[in-house]
């Protein structure tokens, strides 16, 4: 069974008196350790789909299973616990906590979400800091490092809990093309090293080519799937 299995997902939003269908009849299956991208123009439903997979929202219809759990059945607290245990997030705007250093930002999920003991915590944070090449910046605050470095810290934070899945919504949108490429390469490297599934959304064609499986979304529906040598099934 796939790590993420979606069957006929539909997501409707009510904006005032207007009903808006963001996703319609979306089905797919993503295997563990995949490097998957959802592409499509703005408003195609990429972020909505990532929010559903990330247990931040629930589908209006259809079933969505992540790591064997029907995420629509989870309540608020269960969702938070599930996210903390299984999912890492990388945000477009990095979303680092400004009052914490690079080290503390990476440490945060271990400390505040998983309650990992200090020795083990330090070991994992240092490993990730080394992996993303930020070991020499560990005491700096987010406003003292560049955008690319921030996103590397965000990648490390997403991976520090050893999640099964990392979701990245437009992770390169705020980066120049060179840095964007480096971040995607880093994510790929991390996938190879930690065997974590990466799912990211983008509308940047240069970045899209780096994904192994590419789902194209148009008007809330999957318009196509490309397999570039990964291990996903559609």
């Amino acid at each position, binding site marked *: 069974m796939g790590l993420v299995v979606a069957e006929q997902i539909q997501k409707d939003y009510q904006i005032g008196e207007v009903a808006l269908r963001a996703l319609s009849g979306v089905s797919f299956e993503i295997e563990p350790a995949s490097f998957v991208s959802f592409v499509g123009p703005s408003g195609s439903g990429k972020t909505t789909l990532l929010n559903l997979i990330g247990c*931040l929202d629930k589908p209006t219809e259809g079933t969505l299973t992540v790591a064997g759990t029907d995420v629509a059945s989870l309540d608020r*607290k269960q969702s938070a616990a599930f996210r*903390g245990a299984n999912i890492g997030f990388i945000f477009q705007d990095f*979303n680092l*906590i*400004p*009052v*914490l250093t690079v080290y503390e930002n990476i440490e*945060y999920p271990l400390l505040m*979400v998983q309650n990992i003991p200090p020795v083990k915590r330090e070991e994992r944070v240092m490993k990730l800091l080394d992996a993303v090449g930020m070991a020499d910046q560990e005491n700096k605050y987010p406003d003292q490092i560049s955008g690319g470095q921030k996103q590397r810290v965000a990648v490390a934070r997403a991976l520090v809990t050893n999640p099964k899945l990392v979701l990245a919504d437009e992770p390169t949108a705020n980066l120049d093309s060179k840095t964007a490429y480096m971040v995607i390469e880093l994510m790929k490297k991390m996938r190879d090293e930690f065997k974590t599934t990466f799912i990211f959304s983008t509308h940047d064609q240069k970045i899209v080519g780096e994904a192994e499986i590419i789902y194209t979304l148009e008007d809330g529906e999957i318009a196509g799937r490309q397999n570039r040598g990964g291990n996903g099934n559609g």
Partner: protein
Amino acid sequence: MGNLFKIATRNLFRYKRRTVLTSSLVAIGVIFVLVFVGVSGSFKNMMVGQMTDSMLGHIQVHRKGYIASIDNLPLTMNMKPQAVKKLEKIFKEIPEIESYSPRIKFGGMFSSFTETTNIRLNGVYPEMEMKTLPLLASRITNGGKEIKKGGIVIPELLSRGMKINVGDTIVVIATNKDGSVNGKQLRVSGIIESVTGPGGRDGYVHIEDAVEILRMDEMEISEIAIRLKDFGKLNAVYNTLNTMLSGEVNKERKPAFEVHTWEGLSPFYNIARMIDLMSIFIKVMLIAIVLISVMNVMIMAVYERIREIGTIAAIGTMPGKILSMFVVEGFLLGIMGAIAGNVFGTGIVYILRALKITFDFGRQTGLVLSPYVTLQDIVMISLIVIVVAILGSLQPAFKASRMEPIKALRHV
């Protein structure tokens, strides 16, 4: 928990000026309360001390019904020697009683041979009275501090009004309980300053002179003033005395005695209660200051950090922990305000104490203000501030913890 405090502290100092201003506001509130409590408490205790230690004693025992007609100083309501003996036996059984002083209270005419006026007098055993009222001697401003047989200590108002000085001879004339009038020549041995409250303008004679003036066959006592070793045990001793005297009944099988603490004898008790009430109002104002300022800051903090809240919620922080983060911020604001307020407030109180500010109350002049704060005051005020700061941060913290991560992440 330590990490919550670390994050909360850093978040607070992210906006240093705002945090300092809010803490200062809380601190100012604490300072006002401490200074008010210190000054008003000092005033109250001083006045209570003046009354109990120079006039009333802590507790008084009378024959049942005496207090209802105390303004007339009724000699018919005095206690017989047997009753007084019973009372003295009971007093000796109560270890908390330090001393007691039997008194004969009576009204009479006071004549300087050229002028005559009325006077209220206490016939006392000087040693017992001085032991029970340790400040009485300090009120005697002119003449000897003792109340000797054949002497009289007269109120200063009388001395001034009738131009009578120490050493002058006067006559006291009184009617006894049978209606016969008697007089006795006495020498003024001292002038006693007036104080506010019942008995504050009474004169003093030796109890044996009072017996002679009133032509008593046997000594009949109007009241017995009691001094306790520990004023804090006032209510406990009052209850003990009431219990022990409940079995003492008169011929009509009704209670023979009545017991009153100073609170039931002095109208100042109502002023003392007003002071306590004002302290409560001041504390309520402090609560309002802390509540509004902390709540305001925390609402702003939550509003400014919506995306951060969305981020930490998205990565799996439980709602309870998000709530704790903001509550700890409110708690720290309260702690900072309480510490600063207590330090400065205590400092101001002790500066006021060192300045030895004087004030007048009623006919008493030159009373020295000695404000003080107790550890209990500091702990109580700190607790109020901290608890209210936590309460003030609860609503914003709850709002933060209930935020949908998806909406919070979209917030611009």
